[in-house]
C-alpha cells in the first residue's frame, strides 16, 4: 500500500531579500528559534551568482525536516556582486562585495553561504554548508 508523504510543516519558512527585510522578519519573531541561511541573489533564471550557494542550498534544504518544532527558517538573499572591481564608493548599496554592507558589519558574516542560528554563536560558513551532517547537527542539537 503506498504511503502518502505528508508535508509536516513544523517550522515556518520566510523568504527575505536585503538587510532591512531580514531585520524586520527577525524582529517580528522574537522569542523564536531562528535559523537563517544567507545566499547570493538569484537571477531571473533562479541561479545565484555564488557557486558555493548553488551547491549548498540543496544540502541545507535536505535537512530542513530536522528543524525543531516551532522554529523559523529565514532564507535571505544578501545582494548582487558587481561585475567590476572598483573603489568602495562605486559599489551599489546592496552589493555583497561592498565592505560597508550591513550583513558584514552588523551580522559579521564573512562569506556566503552562511547558515546560522540567530542569537547564538552557532554558524556554518561556506564549505561547512556542503556537509549534511553539520547542517543536521545545528538543527538538532542544543
Amino acid at each position, binding site marked *: 500500500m503506498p504511503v502518502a508523504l505528508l508535508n509536516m510543516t513544523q517550522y515556518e519558512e520566510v523568504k527575505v531579500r536585503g538587510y532591512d527585510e531580514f531585520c524586520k522578519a527577525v524582529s517580528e519573531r522574537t522569542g523564536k528559534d531562528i535559523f537563517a541561511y544567507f545566499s547570493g541573489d538569484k537571477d531571473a533564471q533562479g541561479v545565484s551568482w555564488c557557486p558555493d550557494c548553488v551547491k549548498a542550498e540543496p544540502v541545507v534544504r535536505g535537512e530542513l525536516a530536522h528543524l525543531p518544532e516551532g522554529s523559523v527558517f529565514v532564507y535571505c538573499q544578501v545582494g548582487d556582486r558587481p561585475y567590476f572591481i572598483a573603489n568602495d564608493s562605486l559599489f551599489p548599496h546592496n552589493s555583497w562585495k561592498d565592505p560597508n554592507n550591513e550583513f558584514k558589519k552588523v551580522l559579521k558574516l564573512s562569506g556566503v553561504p552562511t547558515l546560522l542560528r540567530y542569537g*547564538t*554563536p*552557532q*554558524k*556554518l560558513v561556506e564549505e*561547512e554548508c556542503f*556537509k549534511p*551532517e*553539520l547542517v543536521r*547537527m545545528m538543527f538538532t*542539537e542544543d
Partner: protein
Amino acid sequence: MAAFCKGRYRFRKTVFGHILSRNLAGKYDYDLVVVGGGSGGLACSKEAAQLGKRVAVLDYVEPSPKGTKWGLGGTCVNVGCIPKKLMHQSALLGGAVKDAAKYGWSIPDKVSHDWTSMSSAVQNHVKSLNWGHRVQLQDKKVKYLNLKGRLMDEHTIVGTNRAGKETVLTAENIVIATGGRPKYPAHIPGAMEHGITSDDIFWMNKSPGKTLVVGASYVALECAGFLTGIGLDTTIMVRSIALRGFDQQMAGLVTAHMASHGTQFLWRCIPKKVEKLPSGALQVTWADTNSQCEEQATFDTVLWAVGRAPETRSLNLEGVGVAHNKDTGKIIVTEDEATSVEHIYAIGDIGEGRPELTPTAIKAGRLLARRLAGISSELMNYHNVPTTVFTPLEYGCVGLSEEEAERRHGKDGIEVYHAFYKPLEFTVAERDASQCYIKVVCKRDGDRRILGLHFTGPSAGEVVQGFALGFQCGATYSDLLATVGIHPTCAEELTKLHITKRSGLDATVTGC
C-alpha cells in the same frame, strides 16, 4: 614516595588476557574511546581520527555546587585559560585607558566598567569555541557523546546521560582525560553553601562586587588581579606563601605589584567560617596567625581558590585496578602515559606529576594517538615547559626557579644574572616599574648553560615564549649575550644582562 592504591584486578594482565584481546580485535565498537572532552581529550581524539581510527569522546560536565555548567572543551575553554585571559585583558584595558590621558587622549574623569557587558562578551566567545569544537569533531568523524564515563574493564566503558540512561561502549584502547575541578574547603562551615570557585566566576551574570579570594595559587592571584583591575574591592587571603612551587623572589614581585595597585592582602590568615547575613552579604570570620586574633568582615562574594582535585570519583578506578596516588587522587602514569592497566592511558591534569597546563595535555594527547596508531614512538617531553602567570604584572618563566637550581647545583654552582628595568611605555604613563625584573639562572661552570629564565613585565607570555625556544636548544649565557636585542622593547633587556647577584651591585638598568 607516592602512596599507591592498587585494585583487585592487577593479575588480569596475563598471557591469556593478551591472546583473548587479540582475538577480539576488530570486535570493539571503537578503536579508541576518550573520557573527557578537554584540551587533552579533544587533541587525542582528533589526532586518532585523522589517523583513520574509529574514535568516540565522552564529555560530561557535572554542574558546580552553585549549578554552573558549560559546553564542550574542558576547563581551559570554559572556566580556565580562555575566560581568564579575556577578563585579564579587560582589566589591563582599564589601566590603558587611564594611561591614554597622559598620551594625549581626552578621557572622561570617571571611566567605569560594566561586569555584565564583559561577561556576556566573554561567554559568547566561549560558546563559539564550544560550537567550533563540535563542528571539528563532527568533521573529523569523532563520535561525540554527552555522557559521564565509568570504567568497567580495560575495554569497556559505561556512559550515563543526564537522565540516568546507560550506554555501554567497547574500545581497543581507552584514554582517561577527565581533568580536575576546584576544591572546596569542606571543613569550613558555610564554605560550600555560600562560596564560589573559578568554575562559577566566569559565568556570573552580575558583578561579584566586593570579593574575598581565598588562596595563593596562580588561580587566586589571577582572579584577584582582574577583579581589582576592573574596579572591584578585592581582598586576597593567604595562609602561608604565594605561588608555591614557583620562584619565590618572582612571586614576591608579583604580589608586591598587586598590593601597590589596589588588591588588599591578608597574609597568614586562615578562614574559619562563612555566614550569610539577612542583607545577603557574606560575613567571613578568620584567624589572623600574626596577631593570634579572630577577625571578621563582610563581602558580596567569597571565591575559593585553594587547589584542584582530579575528577576520578566516578571513574571506578579501583574496580578496574587503575593505580592512583592515594593522597592526590591522580592516576599514576608512565612516560608512555600508560596506567597500571593495559589498554588504559591517562593524559592531562589527571596524571600524577604532570603539569596542569593545556599545551602539555594537547601535545601528550597527540603523541599518544600517534603511538597507539603505531606510526610513532615519540614520547612527550615534559621538560623545559614555559608558563606564564597572568597577574596584573605578568610573570613568565621557563626552567628552574633559583631555589631549585641552588638545590641541584649548590649556591656556588650557579650564577644569577639579573636586572630591574623600566618598560618605555611606563615612562610617559608615569607607571610604577619597581617590580619589572628579569633573572636568568645559569650554571656557573663550563658554557654557563641557562637553567632558568624569569621575567615580570607587560606581555610576559609573549616575551618568554620566544626565549623558551632558546632554552629548549640548550642556550647558554654566551648565546644570550651574542643575541642582538630588538629596540626598544622589554625583551631586549635579556640580551643585555650582565650584573650578577653575586657581585651585589645595583641591578637597575640605566640608560640605553
